[in-house]
């Protein structure tokens, strides 16, 4: 019994390939049910987002599992295997488990530590569970993964603080004013940058938005999107009198706001703090304005400085989580060990393959004139019969191991198939351990 991850993501495949192998959300349950019907696949969960398509599977054998997953992808998307195979990554056993943990904690995401992936993986798992494509192993593994991700989010700084320039500006505003709901925001410049700034600040809860632009008509168009007010550039100083936040992004060649212009405004504002975010290049606001007591001035470099500092914090947290992942992989393996099902399945497969080998010898004795090709075809088909015959018993044995009467059921299973192993006698996770090394991620 092997755990596999076969997939592609933004690191392994370009968007042209990813978009061809992306599952439609509405079809995901059907896809998992279809994959479940494939030979060798005992359990599966498909995670499909804009950045990744990953198939997690429990298979009776690694090589057949890999083969049938690729086969499924090819059939489902109607693409030749050769077209996407070079972009696939395949992880087995401990590496597959560690990869799942890494993905769900956001360590494999484009934006390190993003939390959306936790919900996406959890939803895929719940869908798989509802459609009957998970069993004892994945029910446990994915629950462990969700628990680990929640722990990583609460016990480390992985998901804390802004890692984009636009969000950094919002974070700064919140550090000065707290609640944004009643804050008046002035957007100076109605270009693309101004539009983005207005969207972000509106998204953070600010509802009183005024747009100021050299051409008031353009300001009006943008302001209308946020039920805001539109003014011409001549009204800038008046607008700043009762503003809390001003974001500038004009294409002016010189400063539109200087310390001298701001001094009388500051005086009239009676000390209320004023946050000025200058995202224009060249800058719109004279840096001297930062010397005014109640003015907090930040330019694009400052915002990038915040992002850089926060990313460093996230990288530090990622190293902590890597240790947590190693521990979680060990804990999962210990749990598999307690099931005692792995040696039973191994013994069953070995016995079946021994029968197939004996049968092949007998055929060769009785039909000595068989060509090499004929011999291979017969061998392949007899093995196929065995694999198909064993899929259900293996699936049942695995589920029995998770039931309350596991020991008695597995003993019965052993007796039915006359297997020469005792439950829990052999190293149960040995098969998985033989094929994988303990992961040691560095974040």
């Amino acid at each position, binding site marked *: 019994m092997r755990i596999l991850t076969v997939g592609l993501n933004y690191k392994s495949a370009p968007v042209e390939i990813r978009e061809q192998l992306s599952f439609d959300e509405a079809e995901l349950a059907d896809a998992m049910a279809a994959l479940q019907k494939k030979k060798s696949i005992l359990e599966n969960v498909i995670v499909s987002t804009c950045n990744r398509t990953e198939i997690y599977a429990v298979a009776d054998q690694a090589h057949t599992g890999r083969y049938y997953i690729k086969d499924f992808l090819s059939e489902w998307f109607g693409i030749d295997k050769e077209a996407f195979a070079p972009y696939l990554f395949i992880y087995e056993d401990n590496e597959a488990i560690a990869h799942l943990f890494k993905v769900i904690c956001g360590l494999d995401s484009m934006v390190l530590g993003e939390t959306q992936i936790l919900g996406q993986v959890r939803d895929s798992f719940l869908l798989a569970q509802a459609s009957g494509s998970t069993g004892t192993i994945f029910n446990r593994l994915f629950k462990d993964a969700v628990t680990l991700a929640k722990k990583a989010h609460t*016990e*480390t*700084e992985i998901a*804390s*603080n802004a890692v984009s320039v636009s969000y950094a500006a919002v*974070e*700064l505003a*919140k*550090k*000065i*004013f*707290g*609640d944004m709901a009643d804050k008046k925001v002035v957007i100076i410049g109605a270009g693309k940058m101004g539009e983005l700034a207005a969207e972000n600040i509106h998204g953070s809860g600010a509802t009183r938005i005024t747009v100021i632009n050299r051409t008031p008509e353009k300001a009006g168009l943008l302001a209308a999107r946020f039920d805001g007010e539109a003014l011409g550039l001549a009204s800038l100083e008046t607008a700043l009198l009762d503003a809390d936040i001003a974001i500038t992004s004009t294409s002016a060649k010189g400063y539109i706001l200087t310390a001298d212009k701001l001094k009388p405004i500051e005086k009239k504002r*009676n*000390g*209320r*703090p004023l946050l000025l975010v200058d995202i224009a290049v060249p800058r719109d606001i004279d840096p001297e304005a*930062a010397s005014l*007591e*109640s003015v*907090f001035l*930040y330019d694009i470099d*400052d915002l990038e*400085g*915040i992002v850089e*500092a*926060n990313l460093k*914090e996230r990288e530090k947290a990622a190293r902590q989580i890597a240790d947590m992942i190693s521990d979680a992989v060990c804990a999962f393996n210990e749990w598999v060990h307690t099931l005692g099902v792995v040696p039973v399945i191994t013994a069953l497969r070995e016995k079946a393959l021994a029968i197939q080998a004996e049968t092949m010898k007998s055929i060769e004795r009785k039909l000595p004139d068989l060509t090499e090709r004929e011999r291979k075809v017969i061998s392949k088909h007899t093995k196929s019969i065995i694999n198909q015959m064993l899929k259900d018993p293996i699936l049942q044995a695995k589920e029995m191991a998770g039931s309350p009467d596991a020991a008695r059921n597995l003993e019965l299973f052993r007796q039915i198939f006359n297997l020469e192993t005792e439950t829990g006698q052999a190293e149960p996770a040995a098969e998985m351990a033989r094929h994988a090394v303990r992961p040691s991620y560095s974040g």
Partner: protein
Amino acid sequence: MYAVWTDRLHEGMILLYAASILLYFLDFLHRNRKANKAAFRFLSVVWALQTVIFILYMAHTRRFPVLTLSEGLYFYAWALLTLSLALNRLLRVDFTVFFTNVIGFFIMTVHAFAPEKVSQGAGRMVSELLLMHITMTLIAYVLFSLSFVFSVLYLLQYKWLKEKKWSHRIWRLNDLAKLERLSKWMNAIAVPVLLLGLILGLWWAYLRLPAIHWLDPKIVGSFVVLLVYSFLLYGGERRHMFGKTLAYWNMAAFLIILINFFLITGLSDFHLYY
């Protein structure tokens, strides 16, 4: 036997208190959730030990123990710790517990060297009115201390935001608006408590003393404290003072409290207790 037990408890409490503050400091320097959790647990044990010692002492003396300087400081430190733990639970303002308990720990160490005996002749003048006067004044001082802590945090956050120091601290510490609001709230509660405390003190003096010494340094000092904080409260509400200026004034006002508490008391020939 009682003295031996309380001494051991007290020593254990002080050691745990120091450990807790060190752990909080570690968390302040380099974000460390484990240190923060351990520090909070230690502090909870310190609070429990302080409460036990306080109750044992109360049972031993058969009165509410706030009469000597040592007792007053102990009650002040206990109330400060109690409020800081409650605020931590209710408001979740990072670093408040740490900064508040730096003051608390300092007071605890001062308490160890403060005189314990009640002045001669004072015992017969103790009444419920006096105990309420002292207790309410101390509670007002605890609230002013918390207000001071919020002002310190405000100035730290202001400095980091102005100087663009993008460390974990800036994101952990609350926003300027909240810190200013909390500082004002503490003062808004403390001023009427102090006013009531002083009225009760005057009432006690009127009933028990032959004459009220209006120019006694302690009375003058206490009313100066009341006036300064009332002025701050008014200035803050009417927006004559705000932000950084208000925080600096609030810190200066707390300095007046310290002077009144530790220095002016010694000059008073009217306050028999401390």
